């Protein structure tokens, strides 16, 4: 097969240094032999991987291969679905998150999540961002105002909404809503941010804003992003994981996955032979 079809890796977004040496970063997320079932239907098979702190990891793979399922394991959102079962070990900062004494509410504050479909609450922009801290018991108005501003700035939304913080969030455009959801997640001060196809419903301009945003956030947060867009995966991530039929086929540096994958299946997928 010709190698040129996979050799054109687009330049990375600002802030993501794909060649950065991550070996000094502590391991933030570690999965050891994770299996997962919906009822009797096993959808994850023996998934083991490591994610270093303050890096971006992209999950790619054909539809239905279990990317979202694995992502939801990391903040235990699968608990909400009846009849699910998980075996193996998932550690976040060295702690087994499926242990009996783990406080799921704290875990979810620690591991934020941004969904494919933007999900603003039918409240004002301000209340959307302040929701997380408020339910955590934060009542100090001045503190909340500062926090909302800094989160909206980090999410590159402040300039667009600073004059209408009290307006309904439902009136924002799709791209703005998605950035609002990111700001809302940042407000709970997570360490890890999970993004499940955050830009798949957005136009190219909004998509590239989200990508730039990931470049800025990755100096502070550990980010795991699911995407069907190969270009996007290669632009924003340090390492890329390829899932196929519930198995983790390959996890390697993004530049390596896109230029010189070890597994035949990965290569076939990236070159568009299937999926």
């Amino acid at each position, binding site marked *: 097969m010709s190698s040129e079809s996979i050799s054109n890796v687009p330049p990375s977004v600002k802030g993501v240094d794909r060649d950065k040496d991550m070996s000094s970063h502590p391991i933030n997320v570690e999965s050891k032999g994770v299996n997962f079932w919906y009822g009797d239907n096993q959808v994850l098979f023996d998934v083991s991987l490591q994610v270093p702190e303050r890096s971006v990891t992209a999950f790619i793979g054909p539809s239905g291969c279990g990317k979202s399922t694995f992502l939801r394991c990391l*903040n235990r959102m699968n608990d909400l679905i009846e009849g699910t079962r998980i075996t193996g070990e998932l550690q976040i900062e060295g702690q087994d998150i499926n242990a009996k004494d783990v406080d799921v509410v704290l875990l979810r504050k620690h591991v*934020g999540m941004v969904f494919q479909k933007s999900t603003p609450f039918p409240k004002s922009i301000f209340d959307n961002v302040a929701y997380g801290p408020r339910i955590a018991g934060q009542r100090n108005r001045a503190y909340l105002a500062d926090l909302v501003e800094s989160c909206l700035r980090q999410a590159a939304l402040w300039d667009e909404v600073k004059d209408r913080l009290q307006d309904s969030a*439902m009136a924002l455009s799709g791209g703005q809503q998605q950035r609002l959801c990111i700001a809302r997640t940042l407000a709970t001060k997570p360490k890890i941010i999970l993004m499940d196809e955050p830009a798949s419903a957005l136009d190219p301009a909004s998509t590239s804003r989200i990508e730039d945003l990931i470049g800025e956030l990755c100096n502070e947060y550990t980010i795991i992003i699911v995407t069907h867009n190969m270009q996007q995966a290669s632009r924003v991530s340090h390492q890329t994981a390829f899932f196929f039929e519930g198995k983790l086929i390959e996890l390697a540096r993004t530049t390596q996955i896109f230029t010189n994958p070890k597994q035949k299946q990965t290569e076939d997928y990236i070159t568009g032979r299937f999926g």
Partner: protein
Amino acid sequence: MRRRLLLSSSFRLICRVAVYSAILVLVTLLSVVLWLAMERLTLQFFQRGFSLIPDRAGIKAGIWGSFWLISLTAIFSLPVGIGAAVYLEEYASDTRLTRLIKVNLSNLAGVPSIVYGMLGLTVFVRMFGMFGRGIQLNLLSGWLVVPLPFGKSVIAGALTMSLLILPVVIITTQEALRAVPGTIRTASLALGATRWQTIWSQILPASLPGITTGAILAISRAIGETAPLIMVGAVTYCRICPGGIESVQTLLTDPQRVLAAPFDKYTAMPISIYGWITSGPPFMSVAAAGIVVLLFVLTCFNGIAVYIRQRARNKLKW
């Protein structure tokens, strides 16, 4: 082609006739009632209680009776109904038992009201004869006297009405909760909210218009309901208002009467109307006046429900 056009236009005609004839019947009915009621709808009509002389008959006792009945019904049925719906929709896992309950709720909503009347008679009015001739419970150092069994008191009627509208309240609340997109739930939980916080600060506010509308419609059903009240002993010939409260001022300033009112005997608007209608031709116009008042109250309730729903529709869009 022509045949199809003909078919379509004649179908339209039939539908139109159906609508207009229904409206015609309704309008005729209303105008007859209004016309009959004209001479009676004076201020005095609202200031008088029951009387054997048509000229002295009024609806005051009926209005105050309905007021107490409906307020107590709302106090009993709304918290229980909304709580039950929240439990069924948000907490209960999908077991055979919860499925059984959910299915039977709609069956309960369809049970004829007279059956609830009989239930209320045994359970609340007589309390299965548990207390023999009856006892009096003195609470709050004599301020509150609770007769057991409740007998033919407002509270027995209100508890019966609560049972009657509970299924409706639960079902409409369930529907309102189900209409809240699941993404709101997941998003809130993913931000580290507890189940309770999610329900309290996201789901209930978002479904409040639906819940209120359902509650108002259920309550207005209770206002017009007659059969079960006859069973549980609303008194047709009743001159007095529960607790002897005859003005808003007394209601707000005399707590002892307020506490006593639920255990008093009572009449209600539809019961008064029923009483007048069965009292012979001289009372026809009195009954008509009562009907107009009752219809007015019901229209107000429905109007509020429509207003809330309309406003919510304009405000919330996902």
